[in-house]
């Protein structure tokens, strides 16, 4: 049994996540309120960065999956998996925060608008990706199946992002990431950019922790398979005829 020597796990990601969270909170409350939405507009500074991180996470899952299929190196598979987990978390956050915002501005928690529907589908497809990873403990098979889905599922991101432009819906069109000029006052744009930056710091910190966790999980799977676990049927003793031979 190869006992990997216990490496000290870095602590910087915890500090980075904490600081990024606090900075986001502070700048969101310092920004001026919107003239029509009032204080409600502050939800923007978590809703948009969360959605942004979901896009980035799934983009990196796609790149890492493609690299796995090309290089067959499990480190790319770990990266794809870690990024997808973060993406699912932040897609969920986008949906929940968006619902709170929707209730207070539109007047309903949920409605089957194109953007909302496609985002919900994207959430469930990537939950499926995470479930697929649990379907086998053969590390190579798991990595290959997941990588194929990880590459294919990316087609949803442009659909989700441009759904508000493609179909007439209730969700507003993008304030950033669009061809025309930005429609926000400068202090608000600056706040949004800081929040997006802070969420990106959180992404890097979470990736570092999750990739580390993925490595440990692989060791557990390998140890389970190779070690002392009884072989099926070993409890059965072969029948023999009685009497002294």
């Amino acid at each position: 049994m190869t006992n990997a020597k216990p490496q000290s796990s870095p602590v910087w990601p915890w500090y980075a996540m904490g600081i990024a969270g606090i900075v986001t909170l502070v700048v969101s409350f310092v920004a001026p309120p919107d003239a029509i939405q009032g204080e409600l507009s502050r939800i923007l500074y978590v809703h948009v960065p969360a959605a942004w991180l979901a896009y980035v996470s799934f983009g990196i899952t796609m790149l890492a999956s493609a690299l796995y299929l090309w290089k067959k190196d499990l480190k790319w598979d770990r990266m794809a998996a870690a990024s997808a987990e973060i993406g699912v978390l932040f897609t969920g956050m986008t949906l929940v925060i968006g619902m709170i915002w929707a209730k207070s501005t539109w007047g309903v928690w949920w409605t089957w608008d194109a953007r909302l529907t496609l985002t919900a589908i994207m959430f469930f497809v990537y939950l499926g990706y995470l479930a697929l990873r649990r379907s086998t403990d053969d590390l190579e098979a798991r990595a290959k199946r997941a990588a194929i889905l990880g590459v294919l599922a990316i087609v949803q991101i442009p659909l989700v992002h441009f759904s508000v432009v493609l179909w007439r819906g209730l969700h507003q069109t993008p304030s950033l990431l669009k061809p025309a000029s930005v429609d926000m006052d400068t202090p608000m744009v600056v706040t949004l950019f800081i929040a997006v930056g802070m969420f990106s710091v959180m992404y890097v910190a979470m990736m570092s922790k999750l990739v580390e966790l993925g490595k440990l999980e692989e060791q557990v799977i390998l140890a389970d398979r190779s070690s002392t676990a009884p072989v099926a049927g070993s409890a059965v003793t072969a029948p023999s005829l009685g009497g002294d031979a």
Partner: protein
Amino acid sequence: MRRYARFVIPAVVIIAVLAFLLVNLSASLVYYNTPAEVQERPGSNERLRLGGRVAPGSVVDGGTTVSFTVEDCDTDVTVIHTGVPPQLFQEGIGVVVEGTWDGTVFESETMLVKHDEQYRSDDEHYDTERHSCSDP
């Protein structure tokens, strides 16, 4: 050749299904009708969604109902809404109302406020004409 077929065939099938869904669902993905699209319809009991801008100066509070005009840059429709409008409801803001069209008046019981992508600290900076013409 067979190795590639394993990837190409599923990929082609997936793309074909997606394309089929996109083409066929496009109509039902349209969330609301414009005032002009509602005007073209004969009156009926069919439930519809109407979206547009609440015409400035048109809101009349009638106790349990609110009446107003929903407009875009082509035309407008008179709406009688029963119930309490959402808190952001005001003149000049986008709304989507759900109800029936009897040929002259749109009677709604469900109203959603459609705020747009502008964020301004000062009322004066708002471009209120921005969405007066329907998008897509």
